[in-house]
């Protein structure tokens, strides 16, 4: 029952400004543990900024973040040891091969060498990267980079996994594999938080969602609650963040007109 009481992530009054504009304008959120969490919102809503601040990659202007009861900004190293991150920009040592990257990451996380190699082999296998494990990461395709990033994030068996757009650029077969891996992983009590704009995906995968727009939380809770009366999450989302039906169109009359 302990896991139901302590939230996986607790966010209080989180703010971040870039110049005049507030990218994240006061977020309070408690994310339950052991579930698949979806963070959705339109482009520029502040998803990446929020995830960066939650995972210790970007210093907030104000606010508190706790993961598993530990304050992220008091002791970032201790928290980073418990979480896995797949960030948006995906900066990696590009001139290492996929396998070398995993070997290096695992050792930097303090795992014993033979254990790292064993886990790396399995992850490369499951993620269908075994064939390109000796290629340099710089020569990987977009989807392959996502997958090797995911492998690096999973390597140390974190308590909470944060993924920014993990399915972007990943082929359907690999996406299915990733889903299986992540589902098995949450079944063991771990938490996965991921951002996405693909509502069908979020709907089929997540049991709990938070909707972010213009730097604020618009709705959060179990999937069914957020969806409410609407037939699909997509409809609920559009009504929450305000779909702009009819706004397109009239100004683009030249598009597709006489050439």
């Amino acid at each position, binding site marked *: 029952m302990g896991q139901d009481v302590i939230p996986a992530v607790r966010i209080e009054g989180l703010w971040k400004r*870039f*110049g*005049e504009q507030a990218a994240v304008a006061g977020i309070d959120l408690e994310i339950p543990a052991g579930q698949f969490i979806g963070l959705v919102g339109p482009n520029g809503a502040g998803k990446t900024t929020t995830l*960066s601040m939650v*995972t*210790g*990659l*970007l*210093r907030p202007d104000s606010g508190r973040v706790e993961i*598993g009861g530990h304050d992220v900004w008091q002791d*970032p*190293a*201790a*928290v*980073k*040891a*418990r979480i896995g*991150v797949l*960030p948006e920009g995906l*900066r*990696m*040592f*590009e*001139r*290492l*091969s996929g396998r*070398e990257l995993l070997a*290096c*990451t695992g*050792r*930097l*996380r*303090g*795992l014993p060498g033979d254990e790292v190699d064993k886990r790396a082999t399995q992850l490369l296998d499951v993620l269908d990267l075994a064939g390109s494990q000796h290629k*340099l990461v*710089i020569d990987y395709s977009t989807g392959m980079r996502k997958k090797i990033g995911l492998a690096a*994030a999973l390597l*140390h068996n974190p*308590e909470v996994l944060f993924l920014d757009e993990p399915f972007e650029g990943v082929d359907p077969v690999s996406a299915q594999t990733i889903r299986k891996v992540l589902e098995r992983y949450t079944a063991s009590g771990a938490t996965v938080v991921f951002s996405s704009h693909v509502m069908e995906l979020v709907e089929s995968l997540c049991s709990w969602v938070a909707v972010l727009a213009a730097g604020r939380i618009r709705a959060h809770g179990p999937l069914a609650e957020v969806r409410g009366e609407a037939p699909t999450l997509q409809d609920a989302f559009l009504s929450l963040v305000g779909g702009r039906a009819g706004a397109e169109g009239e100004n683009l009359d030249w598009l597709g007109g006489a050439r």
Partner: protein
Amino acid sequence: MSAPALPSLPSLLGTFAHLKLSLLRNGLRQSSGRKAVYITSLVLTALFAALELIGLIALRGNEHAAALTVPLAVLLALGWAFVPLFFPGGDETLDASKLVMLPLRPTPLVAALMTASLIGIGPAFTLILFVGSVIATAHGVAAAVIGVFGAALALLLCLALARAVATANARLLTSRKGREMALLSGLIIAVGLQFVNLGMAKLNTLHLARLEPLADILRWVPPGSALDAVRAAGEGSYGLAAGELALSAAVLAAVLWWWQRSLAAVMVSADASTVSPDASRKDAGRAADKGAGLAGLLPAGRTGAVMLRSLRYLSRDPKTRMAWVSALVIGLIVPAVNAAQGNGSIYFAFFATTVLGMHNYNQFGQDGSAFWMVLQTISSPRDAYAELRSRALAVALIAVPYTTLVVIVSAAITDNWRDMPMVWGLCLALVGALFATAATTSVRFPYSIPQEGAFKNVAPGQNGIAWGGMLLGALVSAALCTPLIVAAVWLHSAGATGLLWALVPAGAGYGLLIAWAGLRFAAPRVAGRLPEILAAVSKG
């Protein structure tokens, strides 16, 4: 779940050493050309180091040996601190943004990064010089023991300085102070170069005794003090030796602390260099108006559009801005400082012109992966010519007035108005020649400019291409100006000084002509090599 283990320090250091080695090895793996460049530089460095080592060992017994080794140590430290900022080079282990996700505390991280930076050609070369210095000055067992510590301290200090300065600069550049810092860095490098100049001039006299006054000051400046400790111990002044070593150690500790602080800040801040802090919406609107005003003055069509884009990049992209500001400052400072030292010459104006003209040497690299958008719009050599011409025009808008300014300032400083028209004319021709060669080097030797890392100007592994292009281009540009140089020398020796003014229009005309020919020559090659250029510039 129990608290997960953080890596132990020894394993961390081992992993970083391993990481650095893998990166070096894999960098070579990518192409055989790169391997050739790397091996050549390895051989050259080894030869040079061996020569220096022999020279230093030959100094053993010379009572003034320490007067050389102490300034040498300080010079090396200065070099480590500032040269990496301005010259090509990329070390991926320097990029701490790739390590932010890992559970590493600041102190072990700094130790691990230091370990990684100990591996490489540069550190080996520096170590050899320090070992040579110790051999030259260590007399007795105590001095030898102190020498081991002294050399190690000096090397660590050099490496720590290099990383601390680079990190602090990155931090400033991604902050609001970027602009001012760019200026300051330009000044620092210019002044540093002058010190090197000064040191060289002194060394050439080969009278080491004359360096004693300099060494007397520098022995209190680490890492000079670490090497003077060796001499002091040899002469039996153990107290002084211990004090000097302690001073070096204290400075090393301070530098490491400073580095650790900047590193911690850099790792968790967003790149805010493109955010204008006080630009409210109103200001942004005004800036847009200003752009519109400028656009009104520029020619219509492709020419104006490309010029406007180039000029906007100049004011908005921190990297481009930085490069320009340093070039402008160095171009003015070097002649001024030389004049102040009594080595003034109006001919330093050529230096300023060259530094500025080289800005276009990798003009497509400045676009980075966005070059594909340019590629889409070039369908013939004609388009390529228009593109090249517009880019050259944008630079000329700054280069021509600047060159004129530098010539006038140099003439005023050195009070050499007689040669002014000649130098002016030659400078204008040189600008044209540099534009001409810049078009060709941009096609033949394009390379990527990494977006991340404020001071990495060349993607790892493309150093050879970058240097080769610049060197070759500068030589060819000088050669292209030969007719005008011959004319100038002839007028000069014939005593026809009144006719020297004719060199100004002649230089301008010749510059225009040669730039036109150079762009014409390069345009079909740009059109034919677009995919290759895109591949080369988007490796960042």
